[in-house]
């Protein structure tokens, strides 16, 4: 019961602030509402017994990515962008595409709803109940998924180098 109440609270906050993210004219307000969305998604992760992922969500998304967003918003001048056209002229096409997407989601979930009535996992204790969430995830990450983990670190290295190259000042010689 508690899980249901928490799910509805966090889900409602997530959806309302997500709508506000894409409707605010001022991008600083959008960033603040994005923080609210990300934090409530972390709460949704908690109701799914993914405590480690909830912590990662708060630290990486809210503490890292969002701060980067706000930092860039402060770097660029905002006076002009507030007066610029905020919404696309082709909103009719966007509306049709979004309605098609909603219909597709609804149809897919409706057709697949029987598969969610499966009895939840067999009686055998899952690694999480024995070890705890962070230990189970860490063990799988460093054994079964070691190669993808290393590839992810290379991806981050490439992204750091790319960001520095893109943002650095052009010297006269170039």
């Amino acid at each position, binding site marked *: 019961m508690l899980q249901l109440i928490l*799910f509805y609270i966090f889900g409602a906050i997530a959806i309302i602030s997500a709508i506000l993210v894409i409707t605010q004219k001022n991008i600083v307000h959008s960033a603040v509402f994005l923080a609210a*969305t990300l934090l409530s*998604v972390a709460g949704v992760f908690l109701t799914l017994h993914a405590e480690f992922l909830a912590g990662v969500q708060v630290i990486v998304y809210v503490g890292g990515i969002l701060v980067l967003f706000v930092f860039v918003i402060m770097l660029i001048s905002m006076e002009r962008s507030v007066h610029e056209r905020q919404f696309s002229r082709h909103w009719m096409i966007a509306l049709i595409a979004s309605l098609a997407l909603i219909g597709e989601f609804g149809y897919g979930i409706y057709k697949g709803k029987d598969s969610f009535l499966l009895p939840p996992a067999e009686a055998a204790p899952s690694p999480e109940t024995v070890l705890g969430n962070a230990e*189970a*995830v860490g063990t799988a990450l460093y054994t079964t998924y070691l190669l*993808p983990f290393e590839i*992810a670190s290379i991806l981050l290295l490439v992204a750091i180098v790319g960001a520095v190259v*893109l943002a650095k000042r052009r010297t006269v010689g170039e």
Partner: protein
Amino acid sequence: MVSTYHYLFLAAALFTIGVIGVLTRRNIMVILMSIELMMNAVNINLIAFSDHLQHQTGQIFAIFVITVAAAEAAVGLGIVIAMFKNKETMNINEIDLMKW
């Protein structure tokens, strides 16, 4: 009791809001934020199925999605800064240098 069904609807709603944001807004910062919203929706799906099947693989994949989101934000914001230095605008309609 919350079923996996509930989480799928929440994720679908968040993803659709992200798509609408990308399609309708002209400000590149808001478009990047909408992409983050969509990645979050995907993460909710992955973790919901991880809980449904009592297997932690979904959570591992969610970690990789977060990694890709961080890389994407770093490169995307670098591009925004470089672009703002050149064109002094955040409106994607005015960025048409490579448009044929």
